[in-house]
């Protein structure tokens, strides 16, 4: 599948985004960065190039949204940044650690200790209560959660009356908020969220998004969110646009209309 992007448009749009490692590093403190990352699936006829050389910095303490048409490589990029997937070429750093050099054991530990996740669906372990799900990464690590912080997180997501409930007894929005609480509870350096509001109605979605934004504003959290929804993207501080496996544009302090505008440009 190829996108109707002419080379000129591509170059034109790309001009707006920093493209070299030095450029992105000069922009300020980074929570994570990708340098020349390519990702190729399959071989021969089935060969798909999902990422075609992505260089990107995730600024610390900011809310970054990744947008792009379906199949543009958003999830792939996020998985590579979060240490869930290996890259074909290039380097990925979280803080100062180069993920691309870690073995599975260390990568797992890094995910456990320094990264939080929120997925589109199926975020919770059905046999555990809401509270147990929130503390799961710390339980796995065998560390005690900081009680004051845990209280703050629980109150922020407004789940106190639901802590003893199992996921099947919670609404979809509540489940996503539990997932957000889990991602926050272990004070990770960075939270990755892949379409966290994709399955929610607009009201529940707004709750989750405000919660993520507040965690950035008030707690200094770094959040990276993949989304399709211009409204969701407007909650972010920065929107990065992806098309055909490349970064084609970025937009600071976005509004929904602004994002929609750029997206139209990409879809053209």
């Amino acid at each position, binding site marked *: 599948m190829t996108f109707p992007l002419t080379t000129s448009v591509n170059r034109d749009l790309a001009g707006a985004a920093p493209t070299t490692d030095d450029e992105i590093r000069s922009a300020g403190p980074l929570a994570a960065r990708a340098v020349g990352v390519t990702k190729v699936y399959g071989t021969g006829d089935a060969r798909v190039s999902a990422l075609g050389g992505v260089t990107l910095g995730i600024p610390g303490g900011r809310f970054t949204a990744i947008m792009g048409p379906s199949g543009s490589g958003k999830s792939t990029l996020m*998985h590579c940044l979060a240490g869930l997937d290996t890259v074909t070429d290039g380097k990925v750093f979280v803080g100062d650690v180069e993920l691309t050099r870690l073995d599975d054991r260390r990568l797992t530990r890094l995910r*456990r*200790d320094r990264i939080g996740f929120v997925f589109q669906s*199926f975020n919770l372990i059905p*046999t555990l209560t809401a509270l147990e799900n929130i503390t799961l*990464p710390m*339980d*796995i690590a*065998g560390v005690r959660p900081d009680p004051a912080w845990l209280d703050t997180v629980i109150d922020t997501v407004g789940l106190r009356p639901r802590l003893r409930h199992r996921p099947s007894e919670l609404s979809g929005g509540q489940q996503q908020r539990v997932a957000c609480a889990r991602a926050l509870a272990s004070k990770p350096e960075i939270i990755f969220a892949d379409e966290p509001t994709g399955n929610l109605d607009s009201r529940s979605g707004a709750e989750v998004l405000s919660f993520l934004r507040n965690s950035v504003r008030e707690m200094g959290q770094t959040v990276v969110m993949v989304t399709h929804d211009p409204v969701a993207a407007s909650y972010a501080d920065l929107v990065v646009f992806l098309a055909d496996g490349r970064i084609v544009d970025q937009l600071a302090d976005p509004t929904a209309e602004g994002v929609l505008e750029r997206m139209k440009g990409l879809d053209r």
Partner: protein
Amino acid sequence: MITRLTLKNLAAHKLRLGLTALAVVLGTAFVAGTLIFSGTTDKAFDDLFSEGTHTVDVTVQGRQAFAGSADGVAVKPVPASVLDEVRGVDGVAEARGQITGFAAIVGRDGKIVGGNGPPQLGIGWPSSLSDYGLVTGRGPAGPHEIAIDSVTAEKTGYTTGDQVKVVAKGPAEPYEVVGVFKVGASGRTGGVTYAAFDPATAQRLLVEPGSFSGIVAKAANGVSPAELATRVGAVVPAEYEAITAQQAADDAAGGVRELLGFLSTFLLTFGVISIFVGSFIIFNTFSMLVAQRTRDLALLRAVGASRRQVTLSVMGEALGVGLLGSIAGLLAGAGLAVGLRGLFSAFGADLPTTGLVIAPSTVVWTLAVGVTVTLVAAYFPARRAAKTPPVAALRDDVATPARSLRARAVAGGLSAVVGAALLATGLAGDGGNPLALVGGGALLVFLAVAMLSPLFARPVTRVLGAPLVRLFGTTARLGSGNAQRNPRRTSATAAALMIGMALIATVSVLAASMTASIDKALDGSLGADFQVSAGGGFGPPGSFDPSVAAALAAVPGVRSATPMTYAQVKLDNEPVFAAVGDPAALAGPFGLEMESGTLAAGADEILVDAKTAKAGGWTAGSTVRGQYADGAFATIRIAGVFADNPMAGSYLMGEATHAAHYPGSRVSTVLVVKEPTADAAAVRKDLDASLAAYPNLTLQDQSDIKEQARASVGQLLTMITALLVLSIVIAILGIINTLALSVIERTREIGLLRAVGMGRRQLRRMIRYESVLISVFGALLGIAVGIGFGWAVQRALASQGIDVLSVPAAQLGAYLAAAALVGVLAAVWPARRAARMDVLRAIATQ
């Protein structure tokens, strides 16, 4: 369309269905193996026994109404005068006396060759009209010469010129080996040892001087064996009979065949148990496959497939699994039959060989059993599949809503009640076929427990998991949660283990109770300090000359040495075993206490114990119609009633009766009582010395006897447990299968756990905990059921001497620990699979 779908599904779920098929394979292999083994062995024995009929037409022997003596060999000898009469019969071309009896070759180690295995035979040379061909040397010709069979020669290294001791009726005596011969055409002996003597020596040692154990005759041309048998039968005295060689062979084979029949029933029982256990796994696998395919099935229904078609597609898969599994089971069974044969020869019973006999009926049975069980087990999941509402295709939650357990509780309760009733009836021996009743009852109880266990699977696994959670934290909590989350699945998986464990626990409780009862009985009653008997292992007890008792009585420090034996007699047409001896002399060693009547049994008199007297409505002086082994009928008088006594058994027959109706008047045991002041060790030493010439006899003191009883109970326990281990193996397969399927089902969950930082090792541990909880749950259920069964059987056998209930707690605890280990083992592979799962693939799976 449905056929293609079935084939596609079979292909798609190769691995899971493969494990299920393996359960079918193991069960059917055991059935097929047993059938092939017994078919082959039957045929081999037929060949062996009919070998002799080529050269002999008619056999003359002492008449026997039934096998009278405990050792089953003593038959009234045929005097030489009868041989002369047979030779004079018109149509007899040739007749010869046959001499066979007990004669054991003493090995270089001073012990009997062949030990407690198959019989040790002595024969007269040339023995019969059948061929015993010399391999080396010549036939024995004097009172000090023997020839031995080639298998024994090879085993012992004895060869011509060697001096060898042989023990027969009397003490061991030295002989020179002058020849080695081959038995039959094949030279195979089936573990029997042969020592051949010249005819006069053979008669003296094995039968009686001037007598034969039987006569064989060959018919002249034109006379049929049956005709000859009639003619010979007309001239021989009434206490002898003439039968065709074919019938003699059939009779001889009959005993072996009966034994083999018993053996194959015994083995088949375990095959049936395995298949029953396997059916739980089949049921569970199909249930899980159906649950996982709810959406697919719903989609099928939504696009217009009928319920019948959905059911058929699942049943088609079951048919495939059952058929493939049974065919593989048949092949594996052939291998198993070869293995069984090897096992027998390892134990010294080297069976005659012939090509493997795979009868058409074996093939039909194996396939029918395998396929039927698979279809039945898959039927319920298939029906559930058909009930999938089309709307399930649109719903997100794949899990079907939990159905009420009420119907289960009712069905399970009903099955438990009926099963327990059948069991009770069977054990009480009231019903028609107690074995079928007990088996059916146990089956129903197992089903009931399996049906009811989901009701308490959750609380029990939670309680069992609690200490794990406290000790091991989150991984244990997750594992325990997984074990609790689907009680039906946990129960069905645990049920397979439950059955094997229950049977093992039953046998353990019984064995412990038996040992405890024997201990108690021996403690209470055995007045004898020592016991001398021929052979000590399995098989009928051997017999020996009563003169041994006199020799033992002469040992200093010995107060009495009382010979005794056992004999079969029919009372009111019921065959029973009676102890034989002088009641007055046996009273001391047995600790007999009379309740009424006299402590003496003259001709046609018998003593019975109180319990038997009560059951038969007899008192001292009653009479009962009886028949002895020689066929003679008599009105037998109950001379007295003694208090129940485990050593004496239920009946005690006097020596006069025995001498009149049972040939040979040999003994199987001598009970020795020492002077109270004599030193036991010194007496034992002297007794041993006086038995030096009888390597076939064993001397045991009380603790030896207890030890031996305990050892034989232990042996039985080990053997049955070993056979039940097969069902445990199948149960392990079941746990593996369930876990593997659960892992696949929980792919996304596992991906999530990995994403939020669970290490591979933690993941493996989580699955291990789940597995251990399931197995321990199954084992607990099994042990509980087993204790119940053991108790019931003990109660039923209380009147037969097993009057103490003993629950071997330590042993059962060890089984529980073993079950936990089983859980660990079963988790290895599914846990590895889960740990290897690609995190991303797991997250991406929808």
